[in-house]
């Protein structure tokens, strides 16, 4: 698990995929990218999200998520999680999850489960920043 400043760049995504390919006993990589949506709320457009995190606890909880996934899905070999902190503009990527497994079925199921656990368990907060620079705290649905 890594927390990085700002968006997850195309270069970082490429690095993760390249690294995943070195797992030659894997036949499937399931990649999830979370993107900041340009929501329209009360006629105001979201231009960015400001993320903050309890970093020590994020790392500990992410480790637990890894263990949960690996124990539940025996075909999964590796899990890569990268989450942004700080400002991420609409259209940019704020979360990457890549699960590598022997076969596609467990890769995609485990990836979906990892994303749900990340949203539920990681102490990360976000504030929407609107085009007029007003801001509001946002909760996961």
């Amino acid at each position, binding site marked *: 698990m890594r927390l990085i400043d700002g968006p997850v760049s195309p270069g970082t995504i490429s690095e993760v995929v390249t690294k995943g390919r070195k797992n030659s006993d894997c036949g499937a990589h399931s990649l999830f990218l979370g993107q900041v949506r340009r929501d329209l709320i009360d006629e105001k457009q979201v231009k960015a999200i400001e993320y903050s995190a309890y970093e020590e606890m994020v790392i500990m909880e992410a480790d637990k998520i890894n263990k949960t996934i690996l124990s539940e899905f025996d075909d999964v070999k590796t899990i890569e999680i990268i989450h942004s902190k700080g400002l991420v503009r609409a259209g940019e990527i704020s979360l990457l999850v890549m699960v590598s497994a022997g076969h596609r079925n467990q890769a995609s199921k485990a990836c979906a489960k990892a994303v749900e656990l990340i949203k539920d368990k990681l102490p990360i907060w976000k504030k929407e920043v609107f085009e007029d620079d007003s801001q509001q705290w946002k909760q*996961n649905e």
Partner: protein
Amino acid sequence: MINWIYGPPSGGLGGEKGSKVIMEISVLFFGVLAEVTGAHRKHYRSIQSFGDLKHRIEDDFPEIIHYNFRIAVNNKIINEEPLLSHGDEIAYLPPFAGG
């Protein structure tokens, strides 16, 4: 080995009724609560128990009671009132919103 930086591992010193142990506790506020309190980290001295700490925080930031939050002690979310040890780190965590 006893790690005296974080207090005795049993955690038995902090919370007993009538205990004279005086603790220093670090409190972190996140998300909306960092804004409400105007502080990310605050140190509380002369704390005798978790209840004592909670009252001190509510005295300093009365508006905090209007928000939903969970509390973590040393990175672990607690579900009941913990026994504190000198040097513990308490975190006030609003509902998570990662992803």
